[in-house]
């Protein structure tokens, strides 16, 4: 099976080669698709772990024991106010009504609470104002 998770590395863990230990010590394949690790802050890494379910769970347990916070993968859609021109082309492809046009001001509003993270709007925006971020 494959499992996508977000790994959070508190500053005190960043120096430890824990991911390397997982790769060497457990029968799993680790595919890293996004990382953000800076000195003295919590680092983030998006990984896909492939292997037998039991082995994946053992590997994740090892990471937790070593201070790594393991979270299910989260996606987030963001809309840049700087880039958005409020044309509204995104509104027509949004099945969840999370993107809508205010009929008075004609501004395009994005309601994160309604967003179902389908991502249909991302490549529909010609201004590249909408992005999907994985965390």
């Amino acid at each position, binding site marked *: 099976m494959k499992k996508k998770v977000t790994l959070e590395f508190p500053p005190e863990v960043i120096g430890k080669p824990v991911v390397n230990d997982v790769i060497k010590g457990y029968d799993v394949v680790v595919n890293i698709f996004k990382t953000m690790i800076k000195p003295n802050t919590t680092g983030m890494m998006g990984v896909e772990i492939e292997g037998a379910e039991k082995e994946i769970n053992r590997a994740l347990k090892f990471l937790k024991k070593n201070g790594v916070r393991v979270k299910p993968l989260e996606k987030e859609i963001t809309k840049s106010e700087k880039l958005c*021109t*409020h*044309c*509204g*082309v*995104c*509104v*027509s*492809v949004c099945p969840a009504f999370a993107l*809508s*046009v205010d*009929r008075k*001001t*004609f*501004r*395009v509003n994005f309601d994160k609470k309604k967003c179902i993270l389908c991502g*249909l709007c991302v*490549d*529909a925006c*010609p*201004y*590249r104002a909408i992005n999907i971020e994985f965390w």
Partner: protein
Amino acid sequence: MAKTYADINRRIREGNAVVFTADEIIGYVEEHGLKNAAKKVDVVTTATFGPMCSSGAFLNTGHTTPRLKMQSATLNGVEAYAGIAAVDLYIGATQMREEDALNNPYPGKFEYGGAHVIQDLVDGKAVHLEAKAYGTDCYPSGKADTWLKLEDLNEAFLFNPRNAYQNYNVAVNVSDRTIYTYMGKLLPKMANATYSSAGQLSPLMNDPLYETIGIGTRIFLGGGEGYIAWNGTQHATNVKRNSRGIPEGGAATLSLIGDLKGMSSNYLRAVSFTGYGASLAVGVGVPIPILDEKVLKRTTIKDSQISAPIVDYSYDYPNGTGKTLGKIDYESLRSGSIKVKGKDVPTGAISSYYKAREIASELKARIKKKKFFLSEAVQKLPANTVFKPMRQRGASK
């Protein structure tokens, strides 16, 4: 009594001009009546903001020592047309970077094209010029490789062959797969519809028979000032019109010119249409002088009185069948949902009504602050034209 351009400009100079935007004027005339309003109002400002592919800029880079006659040139890797004098270039909005993947894999992202070069220049960024030449006795140099900013160029002016379309199609997709078009991403089985006109705010909707907007009209262009240089390409006036003279589909177009040096990326913005290409979103504002009641009446046009044809972009548009799936007015389009062949279809605009309003208000503010004066057209736009398909001579299919 009718007003003249001189009367209006005098009132602007005196700080007394009465100016409304094309959406504000509707309510004002309803309240005060056409006759009273025509006496009082001097100018109605119209505007539009949206991707207009037929756009680009002429640039003069200045000469190198020794001199160079560019045979080919790229700006940030995007080819600029060099087939004019030694150091004049034309950078077209839709030209892509030479190493761009285009539509392979499909749908391509089209992240950087000529429009992005133009926006980078407007934003004050340095762009990389690489030019090649064959060398002549008078222009011996073989190449140039440098970084140029807008301020370094002798001249840089936008010259857009076709902008501000008078009305446009509403696009849908009746096929079973998502398609990527210049009208945006169209979901299968008519799951969405896109449209692209500022409707009641749009310049040529407010002067549908080209009575004041013509060659030489001073306009707001990309945040700076510009002029209507000519009719646009594909300018077609012999089309079906409603009782108010409004075309029921694409009709007249404008060719616009203006100094890039006064423009801002708030009103001139590069866009990337997934699966289609790069384009330039252009902000255009056109003032209409209220010379008499007749001119004023035209500016009171409402979204509900303007309709556009609904066109299938999966088959009918690419194959030029000329078929439509009916027509729909802009009030309905702006409501967020329309009915097409009995189906409720959510709508989205390609042109920004929000930005169009902002531009109409900005132009109004400039006139009120005595920073913008009206010019009378030196020649009317052609009013007896058709848009022909390509004539195919030679080998048959």
